[in-house]
């Protein structure tokens, strides 16, 4: 029972972290049909920006609670700067081309952003571990957990519900859904498709940067943190079905829980388990667990 509870809690914490990042990836794919490899770089830039801003907030004497605001602002700042710049300045030039070309473009972007990060922040690590203790500790059976991890679970739920509600219960969301189903028809009905694309991309960048910003207190922020997260995020959205929010949530839960179970029960299978689950899902559901209905064009 205690083992089951531990696996459940560990799995949920890991899934929450993964879901925030994967949500942005799946949103961008859903709207723009871009498999965005540079998404991992947005995560890293969010972490660096948060580390810098939290440090500055501390330097000017703001209370530790303000570091949460700093992290949020950092993610928003990254999205506000990089989102429109990259979507309008680069990605729009490749819409309508082969999807593989866009994968290559975002891979090239990923490489450039990696070097850009080193140019701005160097190779030294950044630490902002103070926010990690803001929510105290939680005793659960024989184990201690850090309250911050549970706060991240709350953040993941807010992000998931926010995106779902925004898409399904608002006028703007319905416009976005219309663009997802048929951009040409939406444009002919007077929808500014370009604006929808920019907005969706900014949201995607924001979610990646938010994941990075709120992970920064747990890790040493340094070059290379973008690689692992993008691979795992791809696994999540492939399991869940590209473009599906519900799929990303279920995919993150499957990856988080199966990984936690492996670490506790079969440690040697930890690396393998994510890909095993992904392969198993693809055998039975080649397009992932949740496939968005496609409007048939005549």
């Amino acid at each position, binding site marked *: 029972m205690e083992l089951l509870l531990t696996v459940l809690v*560990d799995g949920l914490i890991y899934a929450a972290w993964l879901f925030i990042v994967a949500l942005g990836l799946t949103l961008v794919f859903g709207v723009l049909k871009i498999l965005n490899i540079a998404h991992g770089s947005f995560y890293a830039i969010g972490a660096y920006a948060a580390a810098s801003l939290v440090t500055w907030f501390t330097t000017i004497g703001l209370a530790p609670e303000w570091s949460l605001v700093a992290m949020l602002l950092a993610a928003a700042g990254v999205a506000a700067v990089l989102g429109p710049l990259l979507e309008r300045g680069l990605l729009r030039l490749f819409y309508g081309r082969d999807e593989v070309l866009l994968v290559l473009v975002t891979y090239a972007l990923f490489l450039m952003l990696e070097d850009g990060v080193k140019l701005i922040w160097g190779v030294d690590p950044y630490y902002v571990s103070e926010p990690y203790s803001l929510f105290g500790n939680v005793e659960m059976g024989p184990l201690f957990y*850090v309250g911050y991890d549970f706060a991240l679970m709350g953040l993941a739920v807010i992000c998931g519900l926010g995106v779902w509600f925004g898409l399904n219960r608002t006028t703007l969301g319905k416009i976005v859904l219309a663009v997802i189903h048929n951009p040409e028809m939406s444009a002919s009905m007077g929808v500014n498709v370009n604006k929808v694309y920019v907005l969706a991309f900014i949201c995607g960048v924001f979610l990646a940067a938010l994941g990075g910003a709120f992970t920064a207190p747990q890790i040493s922020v340094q*070059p290379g943190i973008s*690689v*692992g997260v993008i691979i795992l995020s791809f696994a999540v959205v492939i399991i869940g079905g590209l473009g599906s929010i519900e799929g990303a949530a279920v995919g993150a839960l499957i990856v988080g829980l199966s990984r936690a179970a492996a670490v506790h029960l079969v*440690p*040697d299978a*930890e*690396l393998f388990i994510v890909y095993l689950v992904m392969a198993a899902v693809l055998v039975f559901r080649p397009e992932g667990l949740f496939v968005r209905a496609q409007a048939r064009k005549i």
Partner: protein
Amino acid sequence: MSMRSRFRSLACGLGAGVAVAAMAMGASPASAETFKIGIVTFLSGQAAEAFGVPAANGAKTMIAGLNAGKLPAPYDTKGFGGMEIQPIIIDEAGGATKQVQELRNLIQREQVDAVVGYISSGDCLAVGPVAEELKALLILFDCGTPRIFEDNQFEYVFRTAAHATMDNVGLVRYMKDHDVKVGTYSAINQDYAWGHDSRNDFVAAMGQLYPEAKFEADLLPKFGAGQYGTEISALLRQGSDLVYSSNWGGDLQALVLQAGPRGLFKRSQVVFSAADHVLPALGDKMPDGTIIGARGAYGLMSEETPLNTWFQTTYTAEHGVYPVQAPYRVSQALLGLKTAIEKAMSENGGKKPTTDEIRAALKGSTWNSPGGQITMANGNGHQAIQDIAFGRTRYDADKKMVVIEDIGRYPAKCVNPPADMKANDWIKAGFPGAACN
């Protein structure tokens, strides 16, 4: 004066100048020469912050000191035997194939006299045969795998630092000598060659010195994982007396940052085989009482000598932080090279020595470094052995830094295999021939 006669007198003047310069050069052949070395270390990627950049900084400090003749005796002659050292620093990032190309480039295009480099064991294994094929002098300064000279016979390749076996044998000896009680132990290591090899050596050494101890959780998260929450839960649930890790860099820092608040360091005695390099950055986040190693008697665990004092003072002044393991290891490579070159020059009449003369002088040699004496005792005189130290961490609030207490030192022949044995066989045989104090 006509144009022709003006040209003639200008040519005569230039000719005379060249002749005078040539005579001046002839008066001291070596002093006007340069010795060009390629230095290969990670300037980008995961290992840059922990090892690569500090190593590059260490090389810069040492080379500038040597060129200026500022080091204490016996290294107070300028450069290498009067020759100015000209470094070319290359990024080790990019994998073994790229490093093979870069090594060829350094030797054949840049025509360096020697290459000092390589942190990654994979790169060391890849470049050794290439240097051998090109008959170029290659000094490996850091990589940890014992396989370089256990699986190969090289003439032109040397490693001037001990391999990873001493980190784990020394750590277990330290635990035994300091009465650390271990009924059960667990391990968390990075899932690649370094993590696996270190864990194997540690477990084998535990089998010899703590034969009753039971090995419990054996975790191998992927390199660069970043998130260790689940692994920390597994270690906490296991509740072993001891938790061992050979993690380094960002992985080690993340593990400490996440495990500290969750009480792992209170529940178990945590030991890190190679953790000194994260102390300046972690500061008070490194829990007190953690047993750590530095891959040598380096940094805060080094002994006070005039050479070490010079190195620590100069490095700290130049780079704003005290030197840890990587700057020490590159420095001992450079001082070994200097010792060999100057020995070769003393035997050839003071001329710039050939590659063959240098390698003959370096083979089996001994010299002092900031981290103690280095002896090329193994690998047919190509593999160094050296002393190692371990200690316990304590955050000193007054100094605002982690200090190391309860330091234990182990002589090279206590923690390194003898010349005629492979490391793993030596541990499993119960350390035959080990000479401990």
